[in-house]
């Protein structure tokens, strides 16, 4: 039984075992897997608010589970949340017995998920886990050990939809290798590798590694390594409690783009390296942050106390002490900012009782010396602040080459009743480098003291002092300003600004609420130089002072004041004194002003007035002006009322101008001038002169474009001489002019009638006869007739020309046409009667003329006859005396025929016959064809003390078909020319040496005021006329031996034949002129010219070749006869000059010396030659000779100088010495040595011997009274060995 029982028991066990084996085998079948899968899905789905599906589950349920195709979907809309390709878990079941969950590996491969966050920031995924109702969750510590040897996550791709920017929209390729060990009180995670890429924000984490360990309360991590595409971090740290923690963080570097992802508020332009050490020990926290970018370093060293107490809210103080040091920090590399070009160097120290409450900070010390800003280096830059009991005191000092600023601020009770006091002092602050180019340099200080910050309750006063500064180009010597703001009332109680040329004082106040302004400004300047930079016109004065007061509210200001200027000079006007008083109102943008002014001694080039008084009154487009001008002898008064609207009306109430020569006044107060739309109306204008009752101007009527003209102007007896005072024209005018003018007609066709006369007229030096005439304009024709009423039949001139004249909207338009007609009639005009007053000029004869001219001004055509009968002309001052002249000319359009032209002088005569036709008019000068023949016989062209010429001539002039030719022969029978008479004036001026000061003023260094200018002689441009240009021909000039060229220093007789030829635009001279005889005086010595010649070779410039010799014969020191020859050759413009002495060439210096002293320079012992200059020689003689020949009057250089230095030599003789001073003057000189001769101390003795002949001398002796006298002596000298 037992056996059987055992047997059945065994069967049962076997069956159970079989069942168990079957069961186990069943678990290894897919069916079981399906069942488990189904059950698991069901269980999970029941647990979650989502549906899970698993495609396949494989497991041996012993050491691994493999899930494939796991999907998690929203229960509601079946949207896919997560889908995993494969999850593989390998574990060791048996370890559970050791209370260890031992997972060999977890592989989750190919996870794709999508997570969304709702608007509250809650992840939707969180909804799939139902809220747990189990509140009685066991708090029993987890007693198992969890050990995961390898966690592999591969190929994870997640997408998210989150409002948090930091959460990337998608994460791809997340791979992770890690291991984990969890035991009671201990967690140890070793992350071997984590890599992922994310987009939005884009981040590529290449590797995250690290080790984290938690044991009890001690947390530590070490070798944390985070490498992204741009950054690399290493960190380690430990934490036990706040009071016992430390951390070290090294970033090398931090990529600024990546940093931006995490800390968007911190924007670092470049990638700094960072080293952060954090350590807390015994209530003290040390935080050291080192940041560096290349060589730039910022270091923060701080100590904080009681951090733990604070964190536990046991205290609200964190006493701290922080030092920030900067080393070569360029701010723009650290913070996004504009480029400063600055560097920060130095340190800032902060101390306070609470880090996060600035009110508890009680000390800030900064020393940024060595820093720079915008390339400006701070030599000193220090600041500090102390805070104590609601009050702050701070000081600042900064100094760089831009200047120095120093200041302090004291702020008390700033939370309750703030009061403050500030002081800022700046020295040589270069504002122009800091603010803008023209801001200048400032010196000075500001002190401010006050209470309250609220504008309504501010009670503050400040003093500003400025020391010599230049602010916006205004130099300020000093300024002192005192201002107070109290009860909404700003008051400047005192301000004084001293600028280099004056002072400005101002006081004033301004109500901030009512906007009422009240200001008084006094100023005084002696020049506006200090604001010259503002292109103020050049105004000079001795002193300008003024007082201006402004009152009223801002929109209706009243202003009055006065300005005085003394010795004003500017705008080409000067005045001794200007006073002005004004009174103005600006209400609603309307201006009303009254000004009265007084200008004393007003001067400009034309006007001189002792004083001008005036009152100007401007109100509603009306200007009332009263002006008085007073001078010793001149005063003027103008009283006008001017309406300034679209109609400008001037009421000349009174005009009175008194000068020594005239006293103008208006006779009526109703003079009225009105201008309205191109129409000028003048009413009863009458001006008279008290001094010349005959003078009067009357004007009446209107003219313009609107209605028929009706204007009458009458000027009676106006003295033209008065025009000269205004320098309007260069020439002097004179005479009495009267005109009566009437303007009528339509604006399109005005009609003018006027009658004028000029008595005693004068134009420059020309005296005009009494002229009477009329001038009329009608139907666009201007017509004038002029005649002399005294000789009515003798002289008549009429003139006519078409014109355009009309009034239109642009005014009066007047244009003359180019055509005119004129008619001149002279009937027995006796020249002699007209010229009797002219000195040295005597012309006589009778002129008859009937000439008509018409055509254009440029090419008028002439018709008529002109004849001179019994003419004569003599002007002894130029040597002309012609008698019995008969001239008859006939003009016919462009032809002039010389019917008769004969002039006689002495026994000779000159006749000309011929005719000329001009292509257009003879004024244009272009001769079309002409034939003139001139015959002269024994005719004195000129005969004067300085020159004369007697000629025989037979010459012609022909011009046919534009080819002008002249020819013939002129024989100079006798002539003589005193050349200086021709060349005396201008050439010499230029030859004279220019004074050094004048030379200097043209140099660059010199400052000259522009008023000085060298006035050049005004010359009309002389254009050689066509006539001359086209002229061609060849004329023989025969000079027999009777022509003398003379000057003071030269006299030569010339002869020869010259040809004057013109084939080019200029005349040319050809031929040889011989010098027959003559002499030439150089330095008072006569050089005899025996023969020579001048060869003319044509060319534009007359520059003959010279070839002559001149000889000076003198006796040498040993009485021998010597010949000094001057040889002149080459061209006149550059003559070559040489000297020979007895055939031996000698230098010029010696030649000059011989000419002056009869000795060579050696013999003269002229001390000037001792220096180097003497041996090099001078070209003074060449200059002298050149100027002699080309200008005939040479500039004789200063010979006195040579004489003085030459004689100096014998005067310096110490003892008795005899010496030839010149060739025939011998000097013996003996100085006095203090000897006596009787009652006299013997003075120096001079004996002068003058050689009469070789042995006979006369001599003068000076010296002691006994010796001095006059002797005749015979002198014999032995010949030298």
């Amino acid at each position, binding site marked *: 039984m037992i056996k059987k029982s055992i047997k059945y028991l065994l069967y049962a066990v076997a069956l159970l075992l079989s069942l168990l084996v079957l069961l186990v085998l069943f678990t290894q079948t897919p069916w079981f897997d399906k069942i488990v899968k189904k059950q698991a899905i069901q269980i999970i789905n029941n647990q979650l608010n989502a549906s899970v599906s698993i495609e396949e589950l494989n497991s041996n349920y012993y050491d691994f589970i493999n899930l494939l195709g796991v999907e998690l979907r929203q229960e509601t809309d079946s949207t896919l949340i997560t889908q995993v390709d494969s999850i593989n878990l390998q574990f060791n079941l048996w370890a559970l017995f050791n209370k260890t969950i031992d997972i060999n590996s977890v592989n989750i491969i190919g996870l794709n998920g999508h997570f969304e966050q709702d608007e509250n920031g809650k992840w939707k995924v969180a909804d799939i886990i139902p809220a747990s109702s189990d509140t009685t969750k066991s708090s029993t510590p987890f007693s198992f050990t969890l050990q995961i040897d390898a966690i592999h996550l591969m190929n994870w791709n997640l997408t998210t939809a989150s409002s948090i920017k930091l959460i990337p929209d998608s994460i791809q390729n997340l791979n992770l290798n890690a291991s984990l060990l969890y035991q009671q009180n201990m967690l140890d995670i070793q992350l071997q590798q984590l890599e992922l890429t994310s987009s939005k924000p884009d981040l590529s984490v290449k590797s995250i590694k690290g080790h984290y360990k938690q044991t009890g309360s001690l947390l530590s991590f070490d070798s944390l390594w985070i490498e992204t595409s741009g950054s690399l971090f290493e960190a380690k740290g430990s934490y036990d409690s706040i009071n016992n923690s430390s951390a070290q963080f090294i970033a090398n570097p931090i990529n600024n783009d990546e940093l931006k992802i995490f800390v968007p508020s911190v924007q670092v332009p470049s990638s700094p390296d960072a080293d952060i050490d954090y350590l807390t020990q015994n209530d003290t926290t040390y935080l050291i942050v080192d940041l560096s970018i290349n060589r730039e370093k910022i270091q923060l060293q701080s100590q904080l106390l009681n951090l733990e107490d604070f964190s536990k809210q046991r205290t609200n103080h964190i006493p701290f002490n922080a030092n920030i040091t900067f080393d070569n920090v360029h701010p723009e590399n650290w913070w996004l900012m504009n480029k400063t070009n600055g560097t920060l160097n130095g340190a800032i120290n902060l101390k306070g009782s609470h880090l996060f409450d600035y009110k508890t900070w009680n000390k800030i010390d900064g020393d940024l010396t060595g820093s720079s800003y915008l390339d400006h280096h701070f030599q000193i830059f220090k600041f500090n602040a102390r805070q104590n009991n609601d009050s702050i005191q701070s000081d600042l000092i900064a100094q760089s080459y831009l200047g120095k600023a120093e200041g302090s601020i004291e702020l008390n009770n700033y939370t309750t009743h703030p009061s403050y006091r500030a002081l800022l002092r700046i020295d040589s602050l270069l504002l122009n480098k800091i603010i803008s180019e023209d801001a200048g340099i400032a010196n000075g200080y500001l002190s401010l003291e006050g209470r309250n910050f609220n504008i309504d309750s501010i009670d503050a006063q400040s003093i500003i002092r400025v020391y010599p500064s230049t602010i916006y180009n205004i130099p300020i010597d000093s300024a002192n300003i005192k201002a107070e703001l109290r009860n909404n009332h700003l008051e400047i109680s005192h301000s004084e600004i001293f600028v280099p040329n004056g002072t400005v004082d101002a006081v004033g106040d301004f109500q901030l609420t009512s906007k009422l302004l009240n200001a008084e400004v006094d100023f005084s300047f002696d020049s506006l130089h200090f604001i010259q930079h503002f292109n103020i016109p050049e105004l000079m004065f001795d002193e300008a002072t003024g007082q201006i007061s402004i009152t009223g509210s801002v929109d209706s200001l009243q202003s009055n004041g006065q300005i005085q200027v003394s010795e004003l000079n500017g705008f080409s006007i000067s005045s001794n004194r200007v006073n002005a008083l004004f009174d103005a109102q600006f209400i609603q943008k309307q201006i009303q002003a009254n000004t009265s002014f007084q200008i004393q001694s007003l001067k400009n080039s034309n006007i001189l007035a002792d004083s001008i008084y005036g009152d100007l009154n401007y109100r509603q487009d009306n200007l009332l002006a009263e002006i008085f001008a007073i001078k010793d002898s001149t005063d003027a008064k103008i009283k006008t009322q001017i309406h300034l609207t679209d109609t400008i009306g001037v009421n000349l109430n009174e005009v009175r101008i008194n000068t020594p020569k005239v006293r103008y006044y208006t006779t009526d107060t109703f003079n009225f001038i009105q201008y309205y739309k191109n129409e000028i109306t003048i009413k009863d204008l009458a001006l008279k002169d008290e001094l010349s009752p005959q003078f009067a101007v009357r004007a009446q009527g209107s003219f313009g474009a609107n209605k028929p003209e009706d204007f009458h102007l009458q000027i009676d007896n106006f003295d033209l001489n008065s025009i000269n005072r205004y320098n309007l024209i260069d020439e002097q005018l004179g005479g009495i002019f009267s005109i009566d003018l009437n303007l009528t007609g339509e604006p399109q066709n005005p009609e003018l009638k006027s009658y004028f006369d000029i008595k005693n007229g004068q134009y420059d030096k020309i005296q005009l006869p009494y002229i009477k005439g009329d001038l009329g304009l009608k139907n666009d024709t201007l017509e004038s007739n002029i005649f002399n009423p005294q000789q009515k039949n003798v002289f008549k001139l009429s003139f006519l020309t078409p014109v355009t004249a009309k009034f239109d909207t642009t005014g009066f338009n007047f244009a003359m046409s180019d055509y005119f007609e004129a008619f001149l009639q002279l009937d027995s005009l006796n020249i002699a009667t007209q010229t009797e007053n002219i000195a040295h000029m005597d012309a006589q004869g009778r002129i008859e003329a009937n000439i008509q001219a018409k055509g254009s001004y440029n090419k008028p055509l002439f018709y008529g006859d002109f004849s001179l009968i019994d003419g004569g002309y003599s002007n002894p001052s130029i040597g002309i005396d012609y008698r019995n002249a008969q001239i008859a000319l006939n003009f016919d359009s462009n032809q002039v025929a010389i019917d008769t032209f004969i002039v006689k002088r002495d026994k000779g005569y000159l006749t000309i016959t011929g005719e000329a036709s001009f292509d257009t008019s003879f004024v244009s000068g272009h001769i079309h064809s002409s034939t003139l023949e001139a015959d002269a016989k024994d005719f004195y062209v000129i005969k004067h003390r300085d020159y004369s010429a007697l000629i025989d001539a037979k010459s012609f002039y022909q011009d046919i078909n534009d080819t002008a030719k002249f020819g013939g022969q002129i024989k100079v029978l006798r002539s003589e020319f005193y050349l200086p008479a021709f060349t005396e004036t201008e050439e010499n001026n230029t030859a004279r040496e220019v004074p050094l000061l004048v030379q*200097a003023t043209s140099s660059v260094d010199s400052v000259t005021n522009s008023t000085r200018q060298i006035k050049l002689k005004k010359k009309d441009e002389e254009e050689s006329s066509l006539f001359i240009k086209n002229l061609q021909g060849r004329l023989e000039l025969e000079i027999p031996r009777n022509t003398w060229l003379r000057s003071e220093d030269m006299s030569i007789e010339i002869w020869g034949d010259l040809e004057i030829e013109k084939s080019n635009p200029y005349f040319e001279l050809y031929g040889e002129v011989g010098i027959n005889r003559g002499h030439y005086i150089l330095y008072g010595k006569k050089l005899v010219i025996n023969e020579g010649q001048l060869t003319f070779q044509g060319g534009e410039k007359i520059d003959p070749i010279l070839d002559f010799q001149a000889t000076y014969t003198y006796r040498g020191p040993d009485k021998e006869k010597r010949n000094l020859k001057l040889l002149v050759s080459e061209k006149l413009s550059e003559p070559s000059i040489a000297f020979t002495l007895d055939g031996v060439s000698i230098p010029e210096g010696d030649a000059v010396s011989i000419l002056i002293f009869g000795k060579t320079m050696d013999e003269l012992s002229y001390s000037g030659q001792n220096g180097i200059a003497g041996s090099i020689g001078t070209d003074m003689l060449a200059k002298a000779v050149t100027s002699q020949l080309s200008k005939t009057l040479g500039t004789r250089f200063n010979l006195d100088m040579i004489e003085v230095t030459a004689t100096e030599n014998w005067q310096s003789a110490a003892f008795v010495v005899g010496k030839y001073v010149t060739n025939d003057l011998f000097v013996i000189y003996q100085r006095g040595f203090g000897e006596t001769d009787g009652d006299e101390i013997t003075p120096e003795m001079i004996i002068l011997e003058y050689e009469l002949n070789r042995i006979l001398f006369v001599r003068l002796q000076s010296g002691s009274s006994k010796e001095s006298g006059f002797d005749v002596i015979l002198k014999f000298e032995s010949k030298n060995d």
Partner: protein
Amino acid sequence: MIRQIILILLLILPFFSYSQENLKIKKVKFKGNSAFNNLKLKEQISLEPTSFFKEKILKKDASYYSKNIYEDDVQRLIRFYQHEGYLNVQFAPPSFEITKKNKVILTFNINEKAPIIVKSIDYLVDSTKQLSQALPRKELRNIRLQSNLREENIFKDEWCLQDQQLIINQFNDIGYAFANADFDISVDTTSNSADILWLVDKGTLTHFGKTTITGNNRVSEKNIRKQLIFEEGDVWSKSDIDLTQKRIFNLGMFRVSSLKTSPLKEERDTLPIQVILKEAPKYTTRFGVGYGREDKFRVFGEVQRLGFITDIGRLNVSAKHSALEPYNFDLKFTQPAILFPINSIIINPYIQKQNEPGYSVEKEGFNFTFLQNFSDNFNSNINFFFEDVTLDTTNISSYDPSQLPESVYLKSGISVGFSFFNGEPKLNPINGHSIAINIKTNGLYITRDMPFYRSLLEYKRYWGLNYGLTLAFKGKLGTAKATDGSDIVPAEERFYAGGAHSVRGWSRANLGPKNANGTPIGGKSLLEGSFEARVNITPKLIIATFIDAGNVWEPSFHYRLNDLGYASGLGIRYDTPIGPAGIDFARPIFNAEKRWQIHFNIGHPF
């Protein structure tokens, strides 16, 4: 339009016109000139009045006024003013005054304006150095003391050019022969000032090269070389050359002594010197007849021999006869450059007879004299004399016997004299002083007859007050005293006043004590003073007015200012190269004597 009408009028109405030109000039005046007087300005211009004298007597052509010449003259005057520092001078239009004879009186209206004042003078040597670094102290001082242009003074061209030469000379003197000084003048016409910057280019430092001497026959080269104050290799100096030239010339042997520096082309730093000499004739003989200022008619003869005894020794033998000196034989041997170049020694034996208004003497004796020429201004002499005097008592029988212990006596002694004169110009001074002192003792050596002491002091002063106006002053003080207590000083050593160089209202020696016959007996105290105003009427013609005062008193050291004789007068002098020559007319004033005296002068009387 106006122009055309005027042109037409000009064309048809020429015969009505007349002008102011071509009037004869009667007078030229100036208005507004204060810096220069009319005379000076007239020198500059060419317009000149036509005087009746010139026109009718000299038959010179009349000069006419012409605008061209006037304008030319204005230009000349402007240039003149500008040369003198008045850069901004302006001329207003001239004023005319037409006389009845239709001549014109022309007035130049001048506005001189402020002259340009020298504000600063700076020097830059070789573009880098200051003058003080480039020049030694002496030359610096020369520039400082002698330069004409000075700060705060008016700028003048002439001064500038003179300073230029002065600066060059200073560099020349320290060896820079090629030195050049240029000036850079900056003119500021707003403040009327000029800044002058001298730009000196020193050039190379030069040295004396070889010295060659040509032209000497009698005088040995050794003697000439002794006068050279430089040696080959010394730093070149112009003043050394000048001084050497003067020394050689002062030997008195040469008509020509010329030192030439001839730069060689290849060696610019070594400058050879050429001494070119021309000897004066060995013998010069003069025989003359003439009229002396004091000694009236005179005859004389003189022979000079150069190279006597030594090759630079000089012998002069002369004989003379005149009213004052009936005979005078004089032999003079001169040896120049003895011991030092500034010294000369003279040995001079003589025999002479002298007829003075107060006495007549025959003298034989000799002088042994040392002359020293310290500088151009300062000279001195030391003289030992020995003289045998015979006083001709027959001629002056009425002479007070008490004054005449002996008629024959010997004199010997030493006289020492100094003279200093810095007047400029030398012969017609307008500025400066002259002081001359002579002290003579007799009877100290060899002889013991009539020992006396005699001194004469003369002081002259010249003030140039204005152009052409000089004031001259002369004072003379003489004292003689017998040193043996006898109160007797020989007649020819006593003082006499009156004459052309003394008080000009009296003839020679005629002022002072006289004996009963009216013969001057001279005195032992002399005091004279003269004031003379010299006015240049033309640049060469001088009119002088003067007052002379003076007297002679018999006792020693006895001067009575209320006992002076006064004279006044007028002189006309013409300036010649050797000084003015002319005639002075003078007569006593405040005095019974009223006779006019006429003095013929060569040179100013003082």
